[in-house]
């Protein structure tokens, strides 16, 4: 799949909204990615499937806690080994009940990344086979990277 | 009569003490030799603190082991757990009884000496199995299972080689086997091509089987350090571990003695001049040096590779050697 086709496929999933970054070509040297897409939480798996068909690999899943805006941002970074292109998929979930579908059915590597994001932010990935703490102790019930964490 | 009885008892006591001392002394100083030798191969210097050149290191090690508490893990079979170290060291020292160190030195001139050595050698397997089973530890159980498979597989080519040799020498008596090799190194069994053209190959098979029977690297999967911690001996502490340790080295010494006697002429001089104990000891320790050298050079074999080597390569080769020897003995 060429990059242009990929871009148009992802554009169908991009979130429509006033303040959302829809689908943006970014300069690689400045931001580190070639394409940024903002999607609704439900479309995360569909975006992953498109990128999987385009032979991208999932590199990292990052959580960012925007305390003042009341939401948590989840950033998925994808790379293509053949072309060296990078695509970033972003989505926002509320801080109170952060939930979104899991990507581990498409990319098995997402399994551990999602467990780590759950550890640090408390984000629930629906459909994940085993969302137990990965890096924190088994009985941990706190989420350290949240901005209101004081412990 | 009483005078002879008295002399016989004195001789027995002397030999018992002497052999146990020889076994223990060898185990202690072979461990030092191993540490020094491995150090020189690895660009280090080995123990140098205790005594000149680290010569008192085994004494320090022995004291350390003696001073540790003998632990029995919870759930272990206490009788078997305590029996295993004894069962390992006793056959090893018993084998030393029939070995002729020179024409005059030898505890017992036993007509079935060779057979006795391999009978006792088989008890080693049983003892390791006991140790692994009685420890109530999963790693030890895996190790015990491995030792049975490995030792059974490697006993077979070993016994076939011995059988072929006995066909030629017509005797199990170790002293007579050495006496048949007198007169110079071309008389040594390893070079007896007329007996069987595969004789040097037989020697090589003997060395490999000896390494496997004594669980030395590259056949040390039984106690593979990086996989099973210490294998069957994980739960042993203090002197019970020390006994396993000593038994391993005494087994190496016994295996090297037999290799020297069967293939390298025992106490015979290479040029037939001055046979004696000194030649036996030189050959024995050269053999031990090579055994230690091999350990520190090669990585560990894969378990199925090890069994494949025995069943698919060594056993057919030793069978061929047996048949060839039989034919040549019959014809000539």
């Amino acid at each position, binding site marked *: 799949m060429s990059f242009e086709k990929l871009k148009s496929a992802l554009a169908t999933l991009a979130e429509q909204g006033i303040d959302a970054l829809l689908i943006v070509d970014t300069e*690689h*040297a*400045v*931001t*580190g*990615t070639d394409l940024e897409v903002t999607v609704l939480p439900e479309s995360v798996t569909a975006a992953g499937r498109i990128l*999987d068909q385009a*032979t991208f*690999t*999932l*590199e*990292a899943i*990052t959580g*960012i*806690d925007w305390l003042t805006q009341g939401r948590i941002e989840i*950033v998925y*970074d994808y*790379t293509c*080994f053949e072309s*060296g292109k*990078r695509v*970033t998929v972003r989505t926002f979930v509320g801080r109170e009940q952060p939930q979104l579908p899991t990507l581990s059915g498409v*990319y*098995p*590597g997402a*399994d*551990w990344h999602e467990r780590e994001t759950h550890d*640090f932010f408390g984000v629930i990935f629906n459909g994940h086979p085993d969302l137990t*703490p*990965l*890096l*924190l*102790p088994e009985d941990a019930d706190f989420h*350290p*990277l949240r901005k209101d964490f004081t412990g | 009569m009483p005078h002879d009885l008295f002399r016989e008892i004195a001789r027995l006591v002397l030999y018992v003490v002497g052999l146990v001392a020889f076994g223990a002394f060898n185990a202690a100083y072979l461990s030092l030799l191993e540490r020094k030798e*491995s150090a020189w*191969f*690895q*660009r*280090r210097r080995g123990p140098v603190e205790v005594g000149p050149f680290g010569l008192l290191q085994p004494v320090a090690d022995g004291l350390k082991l003696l001073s540790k508490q003998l632990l029995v893990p919870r759930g272990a079979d206490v009788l078997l757990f305590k029996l295993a170290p004894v069962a390992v060291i006793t056959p090893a020292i018993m084998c030393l009884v029939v070995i002729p160190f020179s024409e005059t030195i030898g505890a017992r001139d036993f007509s079935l000496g060779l057979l006795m050595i391999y009978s006792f050698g088989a008890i080693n397997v049983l003892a390791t199995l006991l140790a692994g089973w009685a420890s109530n530890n*999963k*790693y030890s159980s*895996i190790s015990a299972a491995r030792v049975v498979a490995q030792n059974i597989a490697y006993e077979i080519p070993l016994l076939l080689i011995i059988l072929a040799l006995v066909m030629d020498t017509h005797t199990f008596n170790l002293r007579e086997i050495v006496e048949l090799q007198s007169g110079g190194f071309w008389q040594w069994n390893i070079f007896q091509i007329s007996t069987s053209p595969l004789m040097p190959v037989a020697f090589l098979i003997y060395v490999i089987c000896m390494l496997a029977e004594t669980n030395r690297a*590259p056949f*040390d999967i039984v106690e*593979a*350090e*990086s*996989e099973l*911690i210490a294998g069957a001996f994980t739960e042993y502490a203090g002197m019970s571990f020390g006994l396993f340790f000593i038994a391993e080295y005494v087994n190496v010494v016994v295996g090297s003695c037999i290799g020297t006697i069967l293939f390298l002429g025992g106490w015979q001089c290479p040029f037939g001049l001055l046979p004696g104990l000194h030649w036996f000891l030189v050959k024995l320790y050269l053999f031990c040096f090579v055994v230690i050298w091999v350990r*520190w*050079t*090669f*990585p*560990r*074999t*894969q*378990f*199925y*590779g090890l069994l494949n080597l025995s069943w698919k390569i060594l056993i057919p080769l030793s069978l061929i050697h047996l048949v060839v020897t039989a034919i040549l003995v019959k014809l000539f």
Partner: protein
Amino acid sequence: MTIEGTTIHRETFVINLGPQHPATHGVLRIKLTMDGEYIVDAEPVIGYGHRMHEKMGENRSYTKFLPNTGRIDYACALSNGHAYVCAVERLAGILVPERAEFLRVITTELNRIASHLLWAGAFLVDLGGFTPLLYTFDDREAILDLLESVTGARLTFCYFRFGGVCNDIDEDFIEGTRRFIARMRSRMPMYHSLITHNVIFRGRCEGIGEIPAETCRRYGATGPVLRGSGVSYDVRKAEPYSAYPLFDFDVPVYHGGDCMARYLVRLDEIVESMRIIEQAIARLPEGPVMAEKVPRTLKPAEGRCYFNLESARGNFGVRLVSDGSDTAYRLKLRSPSFSNFSLFRECSRGSLLPDALALLGSLDLVIPEIDR
């Protein structure tokens, strides 16, 4: 190798590999469900070395976090520092002088060689051959001495600063590096004849632990794991950074996908790193080693960026979100060993325990990097 046709009730037992174990490099625990000698399931349990570097990144200023980078992956500490420093420089728009870029490349490549030598020795110890460890450590000593003379540390380096490096090198360093490269080149044939051509080593590594390229892609595995499976992806070539575009070097790729392929990739990478260092020393420009006018308390502009580079283990990434203050708003560290290790569970299913350990060793994991 399974027995079909009969319905023998097979009992499986659970055995723990670690957290204290001679074969796991660091504090790692794997719950093995074994059927005799075969592994039915291998579930890794990580987090024993978790120190929450990402939270520390949010609590400390950018400069104060610099020593942390050396502790994430201690075997290739300069790469981690390089990634962090470049991410911040990208956000803050700081340009690094040429001499500093060359010094960064030289020291990072020396660190890569040291890391691969450490791995090679430790891998052999896993397989039971103890001696090559001492030989590789002997060679590594020369590198550590060189790097100590310049950075002041032997293992956890903190040499890079925002805008350059903190120390310049002198003639002794250049002479020492040249001598080291000459000596290392003469030692490579010895390593190949001692290890690579050893029949027991080949039996333990050839055909063992095969990882298909598609598995690497689905798990995000990078570095020698990926290049040993036939995919030619190296961040230094795909997204050139620092002074790498100026140098001529190859990316070793092997198609076996087994432990032997990964081993050969790393050994060839040592040779390629030496080529890069030689070219860098030959063309080292004069000039300052630190950019001018870099503020003491760095406050990059508000924004976000992502920076990747090729560390000894694979693709190390830093995702940085800044809110304009002197501490990062979010600092995400993407460690290669984390992704490389996540494929262990799938790839070790059905293999023998020693084979799984050979696979684990060949992945070149540094557990503190996984745990952060």
